Every structure is written in C-alpha cells, then in structure tokens.
C-alpha cells in the first residue's frame, strides 16, 4: 500500500503538529502516515491509543523485561523487601526471571517481519541486530523513496528505553548474539511498531453511502452560500466531508471540489453519490478495536465490540451524533470490500472462549453503520495470534499486542468514540514522558525525546520513582504470567497455548473497572470520561486536550492503566514463544 504524505484522507496542519509531543515529533515528520493518520482523525471510531503510545508501551514492556535480568543490581528491576514498602519476593521468582530471559532471547532473535527493499535490507534481520532504522518501512514497495539518513538517533522511530532503562544498552551485553557490544536492542521498538501498525489495516473497514431517499440528495448542505463557484462540489461535500474533521480548514471542501471535477459527465448528480461514498482509513479501522465491558450482552460474541446504541458509560453526544449522521447519509458497511468481518469472526478458536455466532453478508449489510455491533478486539487479537502460533511471520503478533493496548484504553473498553475519546488519547501521548516517569511528576520541561536519554542518578527521586514503577509493572506481569500458567493447567488439551481472547478480555475488564471507579470519584469534569470534551474537540482541539493534559493526577491515573497494559504485554511476550515450541 502506498501512502501519501498529503492527501484527501488525512489532513495535517501546523496547528495540529503543534499539538504533538516533541518526543514523538521527530519520527512523525519522517513517518508521514503516522503523523497524518492519527492527528487528523475525527471523533469518528478512530484509532485507539495513538500509534506512538501503542508502540511506546510495548517498547517499555520489553525494556522492563530486559532490566529484570540486568547484571547490575543498581539497574535491575525486581521486588526488594529490604526497601521500605518493597514487595516480598514470590517463591518462584527465579523461574519467572528465567522465563523472562528466555523470552527476551527468543524475541530478539526473531526476524523482524518488516518489509524490505534495496535501500535498506530489513527482511531476515534479527530484531536486536537491526542495523539501521529502515526508512519508510511502512510503505515499502516498488518505487518507495529512501532517505539518506539511516542512522539511529535519540527517539527515532520509537526506540526509547528511557531513564534507568537506558542502562539495558549501556551495560547489558549479551554474548549469545553475534555483534555483541552493540548498544541497542531494537526488539521492543519493532514489536511496538508491529502493534501500532494494526491501526493501518485500512481495508478492514470500507463504508459506503446507501441512498436514503428516492427523491433527492437526502441531505442538503449550506456550503452553497460560499461556494457558488464549485457547485458540483457542494453536492458532494456532504458525503465527503461528513465524517472529516471540520475545523475551519478548507481541505475537505477542496477535496469535494475535486470529486466534483472528476464526476462522470452526463450522469445525474444523485446517481454519482453512491459511488463517491467509499469511506475507509483511520477513522474507520478502529470499529474492530473495542470491547464493551459495561455489562451489555451480545448476540454474537462473549462481549460486544463497537456498538453505538449501547456505548460508553451511557450513549454520549458523539455516539449519538454518529448514529444520526449514519442514518441521515445511509453510511453502511460494504461487506465485500471490508476484511474485518472475515478476519474477526472467530470460529473454532479452540481456546475455550465463546466463538462468534457468525453473521452472514446480509447481517453485515442490512443495517446502517450506527446499528451494527462490530466484533470485539479480543477477536482481533486471536486472529493474529492464531496465524503467528501456527508459524506465521513476526508481524502477526502485532494483533495481540495492539489488542492489549486497546484493552487499557478506557474509551475502547467502555465502547465509545465520544466521552472524551480523542482528547484523552491525544493528551496521554502529550504527557507520555511524565506518565512513564522520564520526567518528574508535576515538573515542567519540554516533551522532547531528548529527555528519554537522561539517566537519573542512583538514589535520586526520579531514579526511585522509575524503579518503583517499573518494578510494579514487573510484579503485575508476574500475576498475569501466573494466570496464563494456571489457565494452561486447567486446559491440558491446549498445551502451551496462550488464551489471548481471555487475556484481552481480562485486561479490558480490569481497565474498565478502574476507569469507571475513577470516573465515579472524579467529579466534574470527569476522568477519563468527559462527554463535553469530545464536542469541544470539534471546535478547539487544543482546549479539549488540555482538559485531560492538565487534569489533576492525569498521569498518575493513566500510569495505572499503562501498568496493566505493559504487564499483560510482558506476560504475553513471555508465554507466546512457548506456544510455538
């Protein structure tokens, strides 16, 4: 798939780029698809945690795995009962550490699964040995551009152990690998990239506009007042701009003009409209990335996925708006063009989890967008997992890794594209350095990626904070790992399988309960659910993001969710290799 830096699907502006955290900006500028996809997405279904957050969480998990076996106790993570308040050492801790070590060796020795071209061979390269940052690897193909700068630098394409974890590279050398002495192990970044990249499976979802009226356009726009010169475009504008981010830019309008210009001469305008209506891209891929944990029942799966009629902590303003827009315009799923229904309806999963009551093409197409229940994200996890477990390339683990990230995204487990969904996730990306404690809580400073390179002095406050938090992630991973082992013991017929659907559902349940209890005690405005902020986001993105970025204790509350996600990711990465052996 070729990806354009500027185009009709995503529109970036200086204003939007100003809203990006600087820690992410360097690679965003290079990675145009990443930049434009998630900064320009509307409040429509949307991506889950932004790409960088997805990637960074997996990378963090991997770096914590490495640090658990760090040879120097100063930089090693783990329970230390000698420290005041320190956790006691579980009885089988050494076994846990051994399993961690094996997992690190396993993943680092896997082929990247990344595409390659003549500019920078990537395929076949071990993750740890990846020699250079392959430029625009996400869009590799005949004729893809290759930039000159192939050297690593701070924060490039997501490689960022950060803080005390930087010592993973400085001190920890593993002679088992050829080229020992390299400073960097890029495995976490690659795995994170694979996880984040699931948001670019645009072909999962294709929508079209089913005509709603025999008589006319169905919806008439007031564009005409200022657009007399592009009147045909005015006719198309409702259908092209409807779900785009309308913030005063004229790009959407320009696009609709182009559509008008390209219209087939001689046809009635109304007859052209259905053909114009293919909708895919970042706004729609996410409909498969939800799992509603709020007690709703589902006809088709264990848990419902995206389902606007029962979304959120209650149907929100954006949820209802999307439903209305879908019915006003006839927006509907195009089954033949969409991969999602074929990929994410799981039959014969074999993991003890309830399989999908598979729906027919008719079922997927009969109703408009807002009245469908989409498959839950644990099914997405299983889809990729089953491919990888059966010998598939490394890239397939991106699915379960992505699902684990979504499972700790409050709006994805509540099931709402509203309730502050976009501003919350944008804010967490902005505040990532504070959330993961590369910067001290409450401190100022920029969000530049250079901060990741700072290694706090042993005994300093930041050192202690980081060590305590990363250790808490590790201890939580121990719990998840234990849960997986217990599942295996109770499912002897499944060997060393990993119950990814159960795992994602469990993580989502925990994240949901945490989110709801926090919301219940957060007062007004609520955290993490704030329905008004999604509406504000439509007019003033920055202001809406601030409601979260400046919310008291935002980072400490988010930290708990990230801990859950990173811990489950560690447990998954530990257990997955055993399923393939």
């Amino acid at each position, binding site marked *: 798939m070729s990806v354009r830096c500027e185009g009709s699907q995503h529109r970036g502006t200086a204003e939007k780029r100003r809203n990006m955290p600087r820690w992410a900006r360097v690679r965003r500028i290079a990675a145009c698809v990443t930049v434009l996809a998630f900064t320009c997405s509307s409040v429509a279904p949307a991506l889950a945690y932004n790409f960088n957050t997805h990637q960074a969480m997996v990378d963090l998990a991997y770096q914590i795995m490495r640090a658990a076996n760090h040879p120097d106790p100063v930089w090693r993570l783990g329970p230390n009962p000698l420290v005041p308040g320190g956790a006691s050492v579980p009885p089988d801790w050494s076994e846990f550490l051994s399993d961690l070590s094996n997992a690190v060796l396993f993943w680092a020795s896997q082929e990247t699964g990344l595409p390659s071209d003549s500019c920078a061979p990537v395929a076949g390269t071990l993750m740890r040995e990846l020699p250079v940052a392959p430029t625009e690897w996400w869009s590799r193909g005949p004729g893809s551009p290759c930039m000159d700068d192939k050297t690593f630098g701070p924060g490039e394409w997501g490689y960022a152990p950060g803080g005390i974890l930087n010592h993973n590279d400085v001190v920890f050398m593993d002679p088992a690998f050829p080229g020992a002495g390299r400073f960097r192990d890029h495995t976490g970044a690659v795995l994170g990239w694979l996880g984040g990249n699931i948001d670019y499976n645009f072909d999962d979802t294709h929508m079209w506009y089913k005509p709603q009226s025999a008589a006319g356009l169905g919806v008439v726009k007031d564009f005409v007042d200022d657009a007399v010169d592009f009147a045909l475009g005015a006719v198309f504008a409702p259908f092209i*701009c409807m779900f785009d981010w309308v913030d005063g830019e004229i790009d959407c309008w320009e696009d609709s003009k182009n559509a008008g210009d390209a219209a087939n001469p001689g046809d009635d305008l109304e007859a052209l409209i259905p053909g114009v209506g293919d909708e895919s891209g970042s706004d729609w891929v996410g409909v498969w990335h939800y799992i509603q944990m709020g007690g709703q029942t589902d006809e088709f799966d264990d848990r419902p996925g995206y389902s606007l009629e029962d979304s959120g902590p209650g149907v929100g*303003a954006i949820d209802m708006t999307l439903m209305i827009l879908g019915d006003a315009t006839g927006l509907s799923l195009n089954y033949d063009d969409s991969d999602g229904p074929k990929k994410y309806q799981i039959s014969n999963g074999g993991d003890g989890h309830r399989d999908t009551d598979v729906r027919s093409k008719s079922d997927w197409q009969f109703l408009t967008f807002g009245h469908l229940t989409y498959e839950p994200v644990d099914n997405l996890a299983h889809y990729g997992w089953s491919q990888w477990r059966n010998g598939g390339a490394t890239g397939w683990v991106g699915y379960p890794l992505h699902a684990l990230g979504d499972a700790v995204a409050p709006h994805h487990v509540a099931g709402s594209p509203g309730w502050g969904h976009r501003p919350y996730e944008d804010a967490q990306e902005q505040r990532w350095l504070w959330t993961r404690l590369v910067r001290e809580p409450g401190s100022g400073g920029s969000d530049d990626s250079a901060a990741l390179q700072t290694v706090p002095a042993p005994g300093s406050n930041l050192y202690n904070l980081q060590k305590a938090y990363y250790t808490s992630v590790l201890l939580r991973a121990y719990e998840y790992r234990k849960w997986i082992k217990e599942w295996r013991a109770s499912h002897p017929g499944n060997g060393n399988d990993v119950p990814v659907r159960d795992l994602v559902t469990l993580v989502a349940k925990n994240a949901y309960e945490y989110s709801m209890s926090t919301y219940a005690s957060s007062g007004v405005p609520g955290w993490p659910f704030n329905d008004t902020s999604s509406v504000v986001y439509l007019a003033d993105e920055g202001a809406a993001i601030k409601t979260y970025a400046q919310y008291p204790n935002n980072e400490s509350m988010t930290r708990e969710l990230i801990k859950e996600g990173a811990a489950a990711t560690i447990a998954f990465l530990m257990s997955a290799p055993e399923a393939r052996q």
Partner: protein
Amino acid sequence: VSGQRSQRSLALSAATIASLITSLVVSFSVKTAAETETLIQCAERVRGEVRAQLDAGMPQAEADLVLQTRFAKECLGDPADPPSNATAFFVGALNREYHRLAYMFVMHKLNSSSYLGLVRDRSGKMKRARHDATYVDMFAQGDADGDFVPDRLDRCPGTKVNAVTTPDGCPDPKIAGPKAPADRDVRRALSYYRLDVTPACYDAPPPDVPQPLRLGYTSGRTAFKLAVVPVERDPEECPIYYEFNVTMVSMLGPGNPVYRGYVFKDSENTNGGSGPAVFEIPSTIDGASKYLFILADLFTGAQWRVRAVNGAGVASPWSTYEFQPTTVFAQP
C-alpha cells in the same frame, strides 16, 4: 402538514404492503441478469428504477420504502442465501424508520432521549425478528400503527406514532426516555459536521418544478448566468436550492460536451425578490469550471435543466431539458 406527517410514518396499509411485495417479486426476477453487479452498481440501478416510479407518481414515502426494501432484497443480501420478501420488507421498513428518526431529531421533533429510546425500541424488534422468522412474515401482513409489532401480535393496535412499546405493542413509558446525552451537545456536534438541514423544512411539501428561462455569458464574459422561474418557499423559512445540469454544446461535436452541475441557494439570486431568479458564475472561477470561460469561444449552445431541492433534501422533479442555441445571456 398532517398529511405529510402521516406519509413519513410507517403505518402501512395492507394495500401498500401488497403492492410492495408484488413489485419485489417482479424486480427480483428481473434482477437475475445483473447478478455480477457491485454493491454500488446495484444501488444505482435500483435507485434509478425507483426514481422512475417516483416521477411517475408514486408517493415519496412509498417510493423511499420501496427503495430500502429493494436494496435489502437485491443489493445487500447474500446472493447465495437471498432474504425472503418479508425479511427484505422488514429491513427496508426498519432502515426507513432509522432514517426518519434521525431526520426528526435533526428537525427538533425529537429530543435526544426520545430518539435513543425509539432507536433502541426498533433495534430490539430487529433482534426479535432475527431470531423468529415468523415475526417478519407477520409484519409483512400488516403493522397498522407502525410500531414494528405485527398487527397479529399487537395488543394495542392503535399506538400513536413515535411510541416505544412492549413486545406485544403497548406503550412502555418505562423505557421510552432513557438516559441520553444533552440535546444541546448533540446538536452542537451535528453542527460541526455541517449536517445543515433546516428544521423549518420539516414536513414541507416537495417544491414545485422551476422552469429554465435563459443562460449564457454576460457581455465581456465576466460571468455566466442562469435564469429560472423561481419556486416559492413553503414555508417561508424553508430555503430552496436550485440544482442545474448544464451541458455546453461545442463545435467539436457531441463527443466533447462540457458538463457541469451547479447548485445555488435561493438567497444567491442576483435579481432581487421578484421576477426571474438569476444566478451567476463569475469568470474568476477556479477549478474545472474555469473551462466554462476558457472554452467559451467553442460553445454554440447549451442543453440544461433545473430542479428545486428544499432544505430538508426533498426535491422536485427535474424540469424538461431545454436547448438554447446561443450562449449569450439575454436578461429575461
């Protein structure tokens, strides 16, 4: 107005349903020749055919229901397991209902809670229909009060329009007004998506057909003008949009027409409030429309037509095509 309102509801007479089912049988037997159609092609074909029925006098509410039912029957279903006529009819009616409810919300005729209650009510009945094949069969035999409970199961057959009901068709106030987002927030969000339907147009009748009068370049070709006999707003607060199809005839022959569509709001009439309505395309135009001026010397005339669309998207039929053998605009 009341007549329009009843047209929009889904209370269906047995005669209407019977004619729908008959048309389905006919259309589906014809459709076998088009089994390789894509979804879009199918939608375009069906829409064109239903539009012809509408132009021939079928009431709009009925035409819209036929459209949705035929979509379900011919376009949306799995060809290997096509839906029954009754199922297609139920799905068509339901989609029409969802559309109607959305429209009513936009038109301020429902608040957010009532809207959500009704949507959930209809979706609940869809779930029931999915698991009970006899439900759609009974529905096809009649649902006089339009509550999506078949008459045969309906213990309260006279339920008023827009009522949430129990499974046996009686009003159920307990679930009629669920917790919902604030009305103002939904309307504010809708405004950002520019779903700009004019509430004043709710239940407005279809506009009259405007008549083409003149079109052409002004002297010096500073603008291209189109003049029509305007149609009245009804009601006064409901704006009218004029949609033009214009094919410029060139000396290069019939294979090289310059076709454009134009839409103007009635407030853009440059001729004031009385007499013909005159709309202008300035020569400073950019984009593909600039060829209207670049190629002006080649044009020998124009074939054109116009229709009116009100602020709720209800359109008049098209005028007949007019041919004008000159491109000089003569003030009407």
